[in-house]
């Protein structure tokens, strides 16, 4: 197992080299120039050139690329042009919030989706199943920004149960403050999980080994918990894996509305300012996270289903 993990981590290297190349090249064709962003439209060409020199943007491309590789290897991922801080320091400030949303929303998703998936599968074809499906399809269809504002207006501004946004100090305060944003992200994850888990459960319930287990004399609950549920969770695990990779950089709208300083808004702000080192550094960092998430997903497969071997 450990060997397999090490092997997978080694495979990161070619993936990352590819990512750095693509990330670097894409930025070269992106219009807009950080110097004119920083100095405004009124700067003279000489001043702009001087600023680019200061930031090393006048170097040949391959030299800039090698500097970038060096920064990735040394772990700083480059230094932000505007913040004047290593990219890794910017990431470190925001990573806890992003990981917090990832974990929190996934937990909420499981708490919401599991019972309803099980209920729908056991009562398949009935009015209960239909009603559950309607609700979860509606959840998939709901645009997150809309749900954000509905929750803010209702639970924060109306009832006063939660703050309307922002983060606090420490874990306990943030469990409270991040509830609404995590709920928005979690509900759309829940909608995805519920649909696929219900289908998987129904398939598994029809399997021969389930009949065998029943014939052995196990009770309904024992059959369900020991045989049906674990065998149906594979699809759920892959959905969570894909969702987690997406949530890490893709929840900008939720972050902006709830004023959560996450990695997604760091990336968007960097793109707007043309802070090239931050965009590049974050691209590589996201790639590393996605590979790690995929690895964890594969390990979870193996744990859930002994037939799956890590290779």
């Amino acid at each position, binding site marked *: 197992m450990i060997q397999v993990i090490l092997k997978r981590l080694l495979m990161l290297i070619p993936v990352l080299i590819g990512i750095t190349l693509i990330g670097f090249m894409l930025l070269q064709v992106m219009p807009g120039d950080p110097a004119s962003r920083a*100095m405004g439209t*009124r*700067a003279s060409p000489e*001043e702009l050139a001087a600023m680019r020199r200061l930031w090393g943007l006048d170097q040949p491309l391959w030299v800039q690329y090698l500097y970038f590789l060096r920064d990735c290897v040394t772990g700083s991922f480059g230094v*932000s042009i*505007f913040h004047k801080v290593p990219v890794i320091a910017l990431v470190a400030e925001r990573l806890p919030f992003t990981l917090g949303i990832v974990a929190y929303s996934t937990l909420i998703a499981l708490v919401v989706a599991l019972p309803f998936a099980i209920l729908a599968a056991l009562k398949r074809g009935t009015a209960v199943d239909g009603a559950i499906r309607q609700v979860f399809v509606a959840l998939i269809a709901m645009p997150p920004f809309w749900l954000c504002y509905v929750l803010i207006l209702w639970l924060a501004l109306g009832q006063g149960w939660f703050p309307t946004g922002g983060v606090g100090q420490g874990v306990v305060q943030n469990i409270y403050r991040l509830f609404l944003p995590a709920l928005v992200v979690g509900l759309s994850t829940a909608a995805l999980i519920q649909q696929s888990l219900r289908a998987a459960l129904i398939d598994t319930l029809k399997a021969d080994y389930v009949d065998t287990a029943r014939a052995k004399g196990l009770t309904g609950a024992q059959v369900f918990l020991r045989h049906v549920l674990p065998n149906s969770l594979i699809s759920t695990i892959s959905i969570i894996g894909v969702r987690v990779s997406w949530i890490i950089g893709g929840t900008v709208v939720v972050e*902006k509305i709830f*004023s959560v300083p996450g990695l997604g808004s760091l990336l968007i702000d960097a793109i707007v300012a043309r802070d090239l080192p931050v965009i590049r550094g974050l691209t590589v960092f996201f790639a590393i996270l996605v590979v790690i998430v995929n690895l964890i997903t594969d390990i979870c497969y193996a744990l859930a289903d002994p037939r799956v071997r890590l290779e």
Partner: protein
Amino acid sequence: MTRLTFRALLLASTLSCAAFGAQAETLRVAMGYDPVSLDPIATSDNGSIWTQLLIFDTLVRPDASGEKLEPGLAESWTVSDDGLTISFALRDAKFSDGTPVTAEDVKFSIERAASKESSWGRFYRPITSFDIPDPHHIVMHLAQPFTPAFNNLALFAAAILPKAQVEAKGAAFFDAPVGSGPFVLRQWTRGASIELTKNPYYWQKGKPAVDEAVLEVVTEPSARVIKLEAGEVDVALDPPLNQLKELKAKPGITTGEVIPYRADFVQLNTRYAPLGNEKVRQALNYAIDKSALIKGVLYGEGKPAASAMPVMAYADPDLKPYPYDPAKAKALLAEAGYPDGFEAEMLVNSGIATQRNTAIALQAMLAQVGVKLKIQMLENGTQWSTTKAGNYQMSLSYATSDTIDPDQIIGFVAVNPERANAYHTEWKNERLNELYAQERQTVNGPERGAMFREMIQILHDGAPFIYLYHPATAWAEKDYVKGFSVLPTSNFRLEDVTIQK
């Protein structure tokens, strides 16, 4: 832990809580920008500049009207008749660590602002040398008369920093900066908030009135308003203009607005055949119903523009915007040889809703006089590089002034050749160029004012732009907040703000 220390701790924490509850009065402001750095020479974004101006002082600073300068760290000053020397007498001020502000600190800070590392070097390079007769006086020398140099000292980039500390700490200084301004940085959580406490050594005795100020970064405009309504902040900057009316009607909330130094217009490339004709350009100006535009696009929060110059010092209150007169526009077009109008393409920044809406309104208004406008949506950077290269016909744009002196912006939008060839319209007027060269060497006063007024009149008549509007900047606050306002320079001061609950 022994019982004794536990009790001591308990007592201490109770006491500190009590002390905290009794005195600390905090003003919370929701702003839309996330500051990137507190180094004044390295930044150009609003969030950074606004925060710096709360922590650092400048020698002189714009007064509340934004039209003239008032004393800052300098108590008084004199400018020599030839405009070559500026002498400052510094007040008895201290940095937030208790060390005095000296002439050496001033010299160091201005030299740093003029250095290669500075984004604002061109503003300070005209100052060529310094004399320091004693720690409370500094004399600045210029090689040639350059009137705007004095005004530039009021800009954030010329903030006075403690020399010894910046030299010792380098870039790290700006993570925990020490300034002589009303507030001191207590904690900066990037992307979330800036927490400030009052500077005990601030030179305006008894100020600031509040003990603490928190700038919360809330980039989503609607979220800032919601935070204000929920009572999580006391002031919300830049609420969405379409929510202002509704906000004004809410109990406990008041709003305010100011016209900052900004003018919105359409750049007309005078190298493109129809637009090279002055009559055509004037016709386009007559064809625009500015009050409808302001009502429809800005929700009434703005003023019509008479030229590409913001409403600022030396502006001519008698200069009227082009009136809405489609008949006259048609007549002028016919006179110029375009009785059936013409076609033109206009570049528009796709990222800003107001710009998109304005573009669509302009398209409809110009169609009334036969001018068919094709709208080309572009990313901001591409729009800028395209106009700069001259590969355009029209471009919807705006200009803002960094300083309170109109020299900077008129050089940019009206003078050719200068920085931008009249903002890439390639329009040229020799008389205006002459006046520009003179104005820069004329001491501040009515004579210099008359030069600006003449230049602006020439710019108005020559019409290398379609002049549109000066959009307002608004804020909303709880009614217990007294003394808060956004200045025409678009920043805000907090030392006079009180909370009267």
